[in-house]
């Protein structure tokens, strides 16, 4: 079985993001970029499935400009067998990515696609469900545990009420949650080996996918900074201050 894993290049989770002064986006100049943390978890799960003999090949895929090859190399160093870059310089929307992944699934004959439950830059959470719908296959989202057996995936999901376990027939799409696993560290010798692993580049056009334009971002805005607190002397002053602000 082949597993396809999506990897998105995003501003590192721990970086304090700054909105550009004109509100057109977020400043990424000189900012640390990393693999979307959920995608790292997705890849870790795929690697564990391969190591457990449940899959033969793990392919990492990223859509974007050449800079995302860096994240694909990270995926290869973590242990993926090969990588594919869907090359485009356009702004990507979830539907475009889902369409591109679908083409690759068909081309590669993948039976399982594991994706992050969301990308931390846009928090859309759309690619996995869209791909499942386009593909006409089941989806199991927000996985915190995955067991593959007899052509089925038993997936435990984190839902509001607790944990829910569902079973889906393969092929299927799984999106992963934070607690599924702890991704491994990348070994330096494996980074060296990763250089020799195949990284194919295919353009959106070549896949026959047109970039969707159904979403339009109007502007970005930073959250309002929290106002500084004041120290009150006693309960009476506290009440007075709250009244002053119309909070009581």
């Amino acid at each position, binding site marked *: 079985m082949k597993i396809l894993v999506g990897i998105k290049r995003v501003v590192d989770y721990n970086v304090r993001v700054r909105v550009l002064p004109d509100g057109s986006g977020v400043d990424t100049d000189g900012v640390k970029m990393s693999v979307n943390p959920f995608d790292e978890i997705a890849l870790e799960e795929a690697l564990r499935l391969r190591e457990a003999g449940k899959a033969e090949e793990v392919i990492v895929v990223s859509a974007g400009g050449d800079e995302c090859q860096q994240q694909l190399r990270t995926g290869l160093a973590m242990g993926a067998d090969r990588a594919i870059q869907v090359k485009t310089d356009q702004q990507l929307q979830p539907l475009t990515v889902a369409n591109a992944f679908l083409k690759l699934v068909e081309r590669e004959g993948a039976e399982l696609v594991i994706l992050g439950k969301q990308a931390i830059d846009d928090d859309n959470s759309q690619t996995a469900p869209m791909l499942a719908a386009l593909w006409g296959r089941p989806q199991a989202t927000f996985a915190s545990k995955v067991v593959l057996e007899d052509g089925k995936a038993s997936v435990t999901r984190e839902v509001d009420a607790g944990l829910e376990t569902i079973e889906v027939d393969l092929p299927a799409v799984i999106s992963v949650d934070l607690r599924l696993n702890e991704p491994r*560290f990348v070994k330096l010798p494996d980074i060296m080996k990763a250089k020799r692993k195949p990284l194919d580049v295919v353009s959106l056009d070549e896949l026959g996918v047109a970039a969707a334009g159904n979403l339009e971002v109007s502007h970005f805005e930073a959250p309002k900074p929290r106002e500084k607190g004041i120290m009150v002397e006693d309960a009476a002053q506290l009440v007075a201050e709250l009244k002053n602000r119309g909070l009581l």
Partner: protein
Amino acid sequence: MNFAATIAKACPGLKLTTEPSVLESHGRDWSDLEGGAPLAVAFPNSGEEVRQLVLAARQTATPLVPSGGRTGLSGGAVSLGGEVVVSFERMRRIGDYDPVDRTVTVEPGAITQSVQQFALEQGLYYPVSFASEGSSHIGGNIATNAGGIRVLRYGLTRDRVAGVKVVTGRGDLLDCNRGLVKNASGYDLRHLFIGSEGTLGLVVEATLRLVDPPPPSRVMLLAVQDMNSVMNVFRRLQSSLALSAFEFLDDRSMFHVRRAYQLPGPLEEDSPWYVITEFDCDGEADEQAALACFESCLERGWVSDGVVSQSERQIAELWRYREGIAESVAPLAPYKNDLSVRISRVPEFLSRLQGLLSEHYPAYDVLRYGHIGDGNIHLNILRPEHVSRQEFKDRCEDISQKCYELTAQLGGSASAEHGIGIIKAPWLGTTRSEAEIEMMRGIKNVFDPDGIMNPGKIFERPG
């Protein structure tokens, strides 16, 4: 009039407490040292209140113990009995920031981590960093000249202090250096107070220099075969990478930190030594340089394996293996040493130390880790279950004696960054000459003629 009455008269608003729980908590620090109950604990709100406290202490011949975050490891903030502890908990304002000078003026009770945070908010960086930064105070950092994991690039607390206001043991308020970059006007008293462990006076304000934030970085954790290789790796990495930290730990340290925090092994196989190093990594070229370094260390047999962070989160995860050590063994009440020698002498030092330990104390569990890039080694010795506390202490003092003799032979220091405090006072003479100690006592006498400032610290109490 006694102290309480004197200060109540001079400074009616000042909070002074004799509540037993506060006497208990504020009379000790992170060292396991048992002192004696203080007379009272004072919580001044301003430099002027501190001055009044010192004047009252002088008048009534009451010794004072300055107390910061109480994370000290040498008993510097431990009360020996009968002193008034001066806690700076209420003086934690982070005040004037000057973007042109790139300095920030803070009260002594400001927590190290909140100063780091403040610097980040200004787009700058306060580089003094170590595991206890969430509790330690700037005043305590200055009094101990705290170091930590970024000394390699940014130096010690001493290198960050542009100015310091102190109240001396005479009750004078001195404004030392006033934030100047250049000031060739005689003795720089500021530097006398840095590292003085509260024995000359009390720090009531500090002006700290901030620096540019470091560029994006990565952390490598390497498996290293022996101590000579650790130094070879250090040299090799330093020649091609911009290192901001270079730390080491042994297999016992790795064992304890993993056990305490349930951490997975960072590598497939265990190794006798590990290096954790952080370096600037701002793109392909830096990454390639790091890989090339690793390859050449691998070829020479210095390292056998290694991992490198791929995200800021992994940077934190890898640092945990180093930063968690001290706390991981804290419940076991280890006997701690904090030694330094010149960097070039580290391998010789460690191999002789190893010889000494295996000859005399083969059964002891000893953790060796530290800031190897600064020549600073921490030894933590754990008590075997079958050895009683008293016997353990005696044996450790004996080990210390031998360690300090060895350190002295190699021209090192008995206290690299934790201070002399009470615990190392008996061994001051292994690092400082008699003439030096006499000069130091003379200096103390000038600032603290009545001997009320943290007596029994640095210099042993007579008798």
